[in-house]
């Protein structure tokens, strides 16, 4: 029976081949979807790390913050084709990550129509069980962040901030932006959720790719935890420093 089905594929011109035999149909399978979520998620972890490292230049010693941050921001916009390739990739990864996560989530709900009357916590921790919640809240943070600092829709006056070298004054925009307590707190809470999401997501990537065994599992889990906390502390340091007056405009 089994062999019959497999050996008959050639004679019938591949008509009997099951769907996942075609590489592009992988996205219909459980593991294929997990791979897509893992790859897109990993790309975003890389983006978040690079984004943080770039922004940490605001703390450049000897009042170098404005110069380095503004020069870096301008440098990112130097070559439009590269910028747009990066933007399109980010959008594709973002849509892919969200779309396939929602597909998986719906299948997972459907797989247990009747819930336990008395559920128990077994080994799952808070970050693990709230992946979909933290993800959905981030879905509102990302457009907010873009409207705030990238498109400047929420604060059109940021478009007029120009430094002495006639560059957009990103440094001043960040300081003015984070001078507001509610906005800073929203950013810090969102970073907490993002980093919680990454602390499970990053080690999950290795499981999905199959790069995990009993020996390296604790290293991956702890490493992912440290990465999550590191990203949270690094990202929160920027609004916090503005609020506490450690970073000011003009730089002093």
């Amino acid at each position, binding site marked *: 029976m*089994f*062999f019959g089905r*497999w050996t008959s*594929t*050639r004679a019938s*011109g*591949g008509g009997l*081949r*099951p*769907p*996942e*035999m*075609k*590489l592009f149909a*992988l996205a219909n*399978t*459980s*593991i*294929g*979807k*997990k*791979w897509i979520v893992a790859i897109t998620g990993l790309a975003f972890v890389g983006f978040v790390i690079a984004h943080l490292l770039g922004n940490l230049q605001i703390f450049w010693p000897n009042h170098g913050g404005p110069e380095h941050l503004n020069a870096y921001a301008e440098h990112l916009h130097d070559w439009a084709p590269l910028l747009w390739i990066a933007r399109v990739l980010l959008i594709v990864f973002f849509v892919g990550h969200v779309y396939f996560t929602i597909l*998986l989530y719906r*299948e*997972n709900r*459907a*797989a*247990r*129509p*009747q*819930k*336990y*009357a*008395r*559920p*128990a916590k*077994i*080994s*799952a921790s808070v970050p*693990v*069980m709230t*992946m979909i919640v933290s993800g959905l809240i981030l879905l509102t943070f990302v457009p907010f962040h873009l409207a705030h600092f990238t498109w400047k829709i929420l604060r059109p006056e940021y478009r007029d901030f120009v430094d002495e070298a006639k560059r957009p004054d990103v440094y001043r925009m960040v300081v003015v932006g984070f001078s507001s307590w509610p906005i800073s707190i929203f950013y810090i809470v969102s970073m907490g959720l993002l980093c919680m999401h990454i602390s*499970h997501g990053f*080690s*999950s990537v*290795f*499981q*999905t*790719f*199959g*790069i*995990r*065994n*009993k020996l390296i*599992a604790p290293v991956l889990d702890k490493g992912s935890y440290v990465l999550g906390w590191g990203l949270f502390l690094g990202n929160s340091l920027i609004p916090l420093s503005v609020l506490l007056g450690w970073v000011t405009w003009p730089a002093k």
Partner: protein
Amino acid sequence: MNFHLKIWRQRDANSPGQLEDHEAKDIPASASFLEMLDIVNEGVTMRGEEPIAHDSDCREGICGTCSLTINGVPHGNNKAGIATCQLHMRTFQDGETIYVEPFRAKAFPIVRDLIVDRSAFDRIIQAGGYVSVRTGSAPDANALPIPKQSADLAMDAAACIGCGACVAACPNSSAMLFTSAKMGQLSLLPQGQAERGRRTLAMVRQMDAEGFGNCSNVYNCSAVCPKEISASFIARMNRDYMLASVQDGLSANEVRSGE
């Protein structure tokens, strides 16, 4: 010992179910959970009521027949690596309220009360959980060298008794620990190599078709597994599946272009 039980009663897969209160009185501390249910069922039968239906067979933790989600945990105790039949009442507090529910998953329809139909697992095995060997005289045991490490790891996977606790514990009712263990025990050995790719693809396809959820790397499965099977086998399956898909996709194109 005395216990207050809240037990799931359901006529069949299509009827609604609900928790029913039962008192378990004068239970010996050395009774297993199933023996406690036997005692309760004696009383239920004496009163002329329908006894509580639950699965059991070997009662020594090797057959995988008994199930039960006890206080939200499949097999009741996620630390010890035991099945419900090996769970003793002395591990509970006297007078404790104990919730007893079936293994819950869409792919495990309820037959009656606490009994679920786990034949979805059989169909995953039928899809590829075997090796094809030449029948006839047995080959010499040492004719096929197998590294000790592979043999040990394959044995770890082979310890799976197919009880379904992994599915019941998973927030997504995913069967990936079961499927990966049944796949891993064969794919680690030389005898399993010839059919490795097609086995991986076919078993995952069947697993998906049965309506199990997807793994979200929570690892509840290995925490409740009575045979303590590691979630590393899921990682191995994820890896094998992608490799098999790529190999199969490429070789299929090769065959077509050659025609």
